[in-house]
């Protein structure tokens, strides 16, 4: 059966979006907020009373957080949607319309859309924190009318933790990955859809706690949470630890869905070699999370235990603070690949369709993604060369430099695809190319960081800040925008405004580089990171950086407006606006509730990137085998 025949058929009467939005649909979210709030204060107050302390102390705050989180999740609709039926109770009808966006839902598409909204909000608030940082740094002394040193420390801690774990960790994996994973594999949903639904509901309480941590004293440690400073400054650090643990758990629920779905739910004929590149990127990221996150997870719990339970893992005469560094960076070095690999994979998904050419050296590119996840798995030590014994240095220096090799495969595959092709330079393609440019600078400067003698100079300076903003903001966030624009028609059925998308891409590229390139110079000139006060000779360059940063930050209003307006009133998109051969474009746009029509199943019969004239269709549709 040809694809078009299948698409023409209605989708089993459950097209979704039938009922118009009414305000009562958001009630589950309101209820979740109410239960969360009540749970928090009830538990915090009771604990404070029992321990004769006050609710802003670490232990009451911890109990408050735990019960607040449980209350929030309980109010989300998880009871009707999952728990009640799991214990043999009544089964709630599946919701197929707009209401599923505002409550616990097992539909991965609704979950993914909620991820996008969450990421945008987290990006906005963490971005405001960045603006606050740059206002402070406009002048070398500690500005009297703005943040105090203590508040400055809280601000960059919140900015860092939220940008990493509430934005970078899930922008591509969550907002795009969870939406596209089943569509690209030819499945109707992921393997454990309810766990995936739960993963989203863990995010808001964690983010709210971290953003509000200054209310109970904030935290001074930055996003590292290093002991013993963690135990000695501000009880807001418990929100840091609990928030980070919650966000990691959420990532993990996603990761095991990705693994299981890829292994067990691929369409017929989709051999591993034919799995789309983007899905390979998700796979590589998930292996990292499942294998590496546990050590960091335990480190966070033990750090917390030192604060509230009186243990001495890292503090006191028997404490071993270096062990925390080992545990923390065990995941958090590889975590950078959790951010980056899906972005790499996204380029490799977009570029072949834009150039209308097959992906160059496909198997090498897959090996590159997996290679980065494996080699990158064991080099966290390069983040604290200044704290370890000399034996460890050459080992981790060498392994770190080796990561460049598999990364090179990915770049070569992208360049080989473009070479000699006629590229249609739409906004997603432009942003992907810019991301590659930025990543080149970010990755190359990483080599200097990893070089021990150089790192002794560069460690804890603005050089490092510049390095990781080039890799994360410069590569991951550029790619996020590229992905948002590329798959926007898939999700909403409308096109984004190309002019404003490209206008902002250039705005972003220019002000991004104007903000962060000077930071390399500042770092070499001796500007330390994490300080509110610096020497006057660094003033002119800092002023330049701050002003560029304000333009950079304000610029994000452009895509925000563009996406919103295009969603409401953009041009209607054709089903496959980019002429891509990838499977996700073979279903109607916007995607119906049930992606593939009842009674038919897709079989993969060829590579999905063969754009030669008259190439055979890669997918055929057949009636579902009897019984299933």
């Amino acid at each position, binding site marked *: 059966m040809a694809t078009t025949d299948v698409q023409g058929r209605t989708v089993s009467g459950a097209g979704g979006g039938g009922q118009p939005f009414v305000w009562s649909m958001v009630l589950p979210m309101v209820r979740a907020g109410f239960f969360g709030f009540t749970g928090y204060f009830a538990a915090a107050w009771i604990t404070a009373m029992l321990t004769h302390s006050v609710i802003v102390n670490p232990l009451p705050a911890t109990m408050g957080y735990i019960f607040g989180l449980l209350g929030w999740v309980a109010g989300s609709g998880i009871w009707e949607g999952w728990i009640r039926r799991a214990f043999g109770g009544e089964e709630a009808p599946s919701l197929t319309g707009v209401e599923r966006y505002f409550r616990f839902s*097992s539909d991965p598409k609704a979950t993914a859309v909620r991820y996008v909204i969450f990421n945008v909000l987290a990006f906005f608030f963490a971005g405001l924190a960045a603006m606050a940082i740059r206002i402070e740094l406009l002048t070398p002394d500690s500005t009297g009318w703005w943040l105090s040193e203590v508040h400055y420390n809280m601000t960059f801690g919140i900015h860092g933790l939220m940008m990493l774990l509430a934005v970078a960790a899930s922008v591509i994996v969550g907002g795009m990955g969870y939406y596209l994973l089943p569509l690209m594999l030819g499945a109707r949903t992921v393997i454990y859809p309810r766990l995936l639904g739960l993963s989203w509901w863990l995010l808001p309480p964690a983010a709210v706690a971290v953003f509000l941590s200054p209310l109970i004293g904030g935290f001074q440690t930055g996003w590292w949470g290093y002991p013993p400073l963690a135990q000695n400054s501000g009880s807001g650090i418990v929100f840091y630890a609990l928030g980070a643990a919650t966000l990691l758990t959420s990532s993990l629920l996603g990761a095991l869905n990705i693994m299981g779905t890829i*292994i*067990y739910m691929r369409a017929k004929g989709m051999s591993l070699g034919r799995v789309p590149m983007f899905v390979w990127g998700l796979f590589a990221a998930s292996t990292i999370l*499942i294998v590496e996150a546990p050590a960091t997870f335990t480190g966070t719990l033990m750090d917390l235990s030192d604060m509230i339970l009186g243990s001495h893992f890292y503090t006191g005469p028997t404490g071993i603070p270096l062990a925390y560094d080992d545990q923390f960076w065990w995941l958090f070095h590889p975590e950078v690949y959790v951010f980056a690999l899906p972005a790499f994979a996204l380029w490799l998904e977009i570029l072949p369709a834009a150039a209308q050419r097959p992906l160059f050296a496909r198997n090498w590119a897959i090996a590159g993604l997996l290679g980065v996840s494996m080699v990158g798995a064991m080099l966290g030590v390069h983040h604290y060369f200044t704290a370890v014994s000399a034996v460890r240095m050459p080992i981790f220096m060498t392994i770190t430099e080796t990561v460049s090799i598999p990364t090179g495969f990915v770049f070569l595959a992208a360049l080989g695809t473009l070479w000699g092709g006629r590229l249609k330079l739409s906004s997603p393609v432009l942003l992907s190319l810019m991301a590659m440019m930025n990543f080149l600078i970010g990755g190359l400067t990483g080599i200097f960081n990893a070089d021990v003698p150089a790192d002794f100079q560069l460690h804890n300076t603005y050089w490092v800040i510049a390095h990781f903003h080039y890799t994360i903001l410069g590569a991951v966030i550029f790619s996020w925008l590229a992905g948002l624009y590329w798959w926007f028609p898939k999700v909403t059925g409308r096109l984004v405004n190309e002019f404003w998308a490209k206008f902002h891409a250039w705005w972003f590229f220019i002000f991004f580089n104007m903000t962060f390139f000077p930071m390399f110079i500042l770092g070499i000139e001796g500007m330390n990171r994490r300080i509110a006060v610096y020497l006057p000779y660094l003033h002119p360059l800092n002023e330049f950086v701050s002003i560029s940063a304000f333009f950079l930050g304000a610029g994000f209003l452009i895509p925000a407006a563009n996406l919103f307006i295009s969603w409401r009133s953009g041009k209607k998109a054709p089903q496959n606006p980019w002429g891509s051969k990838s499977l996700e474009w073979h279903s109607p746009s916007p995607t119906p509730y049930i992606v593939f029509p009842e009674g038919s199943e897709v079989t993969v019969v060829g590579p999905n990137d063969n754009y030669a004239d008259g190439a055979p269709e890669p997918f055929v549709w057949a009636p579902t085998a009897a019984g299933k």
Partner: protein
Amino acid sequence: MAVENTASLMDPAPERAKRGAFFFPMLFMGIICAAFDLGRFLWGGSGVPKTVDFDTGATLTVIMLLSMGPMLGARGKLSRGQDAAALGNFMLLMVVGIIMIVGIISTWSAVPIGLGYGGIYDITSGWLALYFLAGTLGLLASVMKGKRVPARFSAERWVAHNVVSFWGFMVLVWTVFFIVFYLA
């Protein structure tokens, strides 16, 4: 349009997949235990403190090893489709789960959390107690579902299978815990 129909269309993963993929959460949870177990040597040094409640620890281990009987029994019954009979085994395992939680908590007084061995012992066993809590709740859910809606229980037998697998995982991590913390 039947609601049931929509749900089954949206969730077509076969039993093999639902059971196979359960390996990944167990892998993750197992690595957490391994990280704690390794920490025992870093923070606890070599040798086990005299104060440790060896009798309770050994008893709990024997109970866990014996619980493999009802566990394997449940597994066999589920595979043969004798779901109602399996529920008896589930209830037995639930009792074991509760004994384990209480037992773990009772060992804490012997090794206070403040220093070295006590700290890592308490946090590791406390973490295992959380696993037991999760396992016991899973068993309870299965029992209640099996009693109230047997047809649904059978249609989603993979859930019960995974609960049983989780118990097997608990036997493993508890035994390793015992060896690492009481014998090594």
